[in-house]
């Protein structure tokens, strides 16, 4: 894996936007073409050397020893380590910790260090708001990053930034963290990547040609799914605008603890399963309801959790496969789907 952004691909190609148009037309006339049909609209010769990467997400580790979530994260690591072929690297989708304490973040790093391949990681809100990311940064590095791998440009952003609700109200760090721990907390308001990261992103991609394969990785989805639970990123429209020049952008995210797919314009979005607990689907219509997983059975302790692996082809098509710990996938999802 290279941490150096490759600026050599500066040739300009016009943006066709076929995928976005196809999606809009399909939705406008109420036709469900299915994920595979829709994404097939924009393949091309992009010179990607085929490879796979895996995603592990939302471990939510607690401080007490021998917690079941420790085991579940370790199981996810073992699952990825047993994949054939091995993924080139693993992306972790945020929320290593539940309460943002250093011991939880350290425990997570120790478990994740068992991975046989490199790890790239972005933060979740549970990692962040006790010390505003100090411990996380000390352990995991920058939360905003990009790198090129086998012809694909990978971007990681911190999408869980909120307005300052704690200074004026005189909250302690623990109180701030407590507010942020609740999915349905009414205080913090919507999350986003905020201005600095938008500037960083614009600068990061300004010299990339439109046919550059782009993968953007965040904790929260880059579309308005269910803002009440922060199943959204408030400045996702700005992110999508910055990335609109590219023919094909893949967004992978954590936070929602479920299987999920969506597509807006040139950006497809794929959610990651958690390793801790599944979340119910919120009360909104889905554009691709067939990507929902089965209802989790609470009597099966690890039902509805797992990992995912993505195989990228030479034409920058992705085969997304969820690997649940239990039998969580509907027949539609069992063989994976193409993005």
């Amino acid at each position, binding site marked *: 894996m290279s941490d150096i952004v490759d600026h050599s691909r500066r040739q300009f190609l016009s943006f066709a936007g076929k995928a976005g148009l196809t999606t809009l037309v399909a939705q406008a006339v109420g036709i469900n073409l299915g994920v595979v049909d829709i994404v097939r609209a924009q393949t091309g010769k992009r010179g990607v050397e085929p490879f796979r990467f895996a995603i592990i997400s939302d471990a939510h580790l*607690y401080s007490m020893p021998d917690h079941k979530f420790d085991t579940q994260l370790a199981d996810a690591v073992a699952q990825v380590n047993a994949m054939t072929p091995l993924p080139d690297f693993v992306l972790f989708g945020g929320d290593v910790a*539940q309460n943002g304490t250093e011991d939880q973040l350290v425990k997570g790093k120790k478990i994740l260090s068992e991975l046989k391949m490199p790890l790239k990681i972005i933060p979740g809100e549970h990692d962040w708001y006790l010390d505003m990311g100090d411990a996380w940064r000390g352990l995991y590095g920058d939360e905003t990053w990009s790198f090129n791998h086998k012809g694909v440009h990978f971007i990681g952003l911190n999408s869980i930034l909120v307005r300052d609700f704690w200074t004026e109200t005189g909250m302690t760090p623990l109180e701030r963290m407590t507010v942020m721990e609740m999915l*349905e907390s009414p205080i913090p308001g919507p999350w986003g990547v905020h201005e600095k990261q938008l500037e960083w992103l614009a600068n990061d991609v300004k010299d990339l040609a439109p046919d550059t394969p782009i993968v953007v990785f965040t904790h929260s989805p880059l579309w308005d799914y269910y803002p009440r639970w922060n199943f959204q990123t408030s400045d996702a429209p700005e992110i999508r605008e910055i990335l609109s020049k590219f023919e094909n952008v893949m967004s992978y995210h954590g936070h929602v603890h479920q299987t999920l797919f969506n597509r807006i314009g040139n950006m497809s979005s794929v959610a990651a399963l958690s390793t801790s607990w599944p979340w119910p689907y*919120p*009360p909104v219509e889905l554009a691709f309801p067939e990507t929902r997983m089965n*209802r989790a059975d609470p*009597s099966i302790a690890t039902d509805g959790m797992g990992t995912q692996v993505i195989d990228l082809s030479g034409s920058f098509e992705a085969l997304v496969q969820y690997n649940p710990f239990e039998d969580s996938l509907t027949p539609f999802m069992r063989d994976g789907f193409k993005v």
Partner: protein
Amino acid sequence: MTNQKLKIERVLVVSAVAAVLAAGSSWARAPFTDEELAEQKAALVESVALGYDLWHGSRADMTTNGLACGNCHPDTAAANPQTFPKYMTMYGKVIPFREMVNWCIENPQVGTRLDVNGDDMTAMEAYAFYLHRGKEITPGLASEQTTPIVVEYGTGFARTPTGIGVDTKP
């Protein structure tokens, strides 16, 4: 016919007319005064608020691993109180919602079950049912996830967030 008898008949007729009018329009008197209704609503909201706190981990003996009901059931989603009583595989029989609450406390949360007739259990039930008000009551097994209620962005109801779990709380 005596005057006395006429008086009685007149009273009966007037009463019957009044009764018919009352039945056709509204109650003869409100069953409760506005003040009484306000008191009753306040008592319900107090119970719902207690349920909200418990749902988010305010009572330490409900968990030994830090998990609260709210971890898996934000806004009580997928708790499906309106589908109980129903058959639950972990029991092999039909159980009420209160027993399902205790199952979650004892299993995923590894905590101590609540008194099914206690105020705390009533509060848990009050919170879950309050957030499902308006949903159709459909007892029976939900083979698919039922749709949770829509909670507009904001509080859902007036309550200060308490956080989730007890792991790092003082």
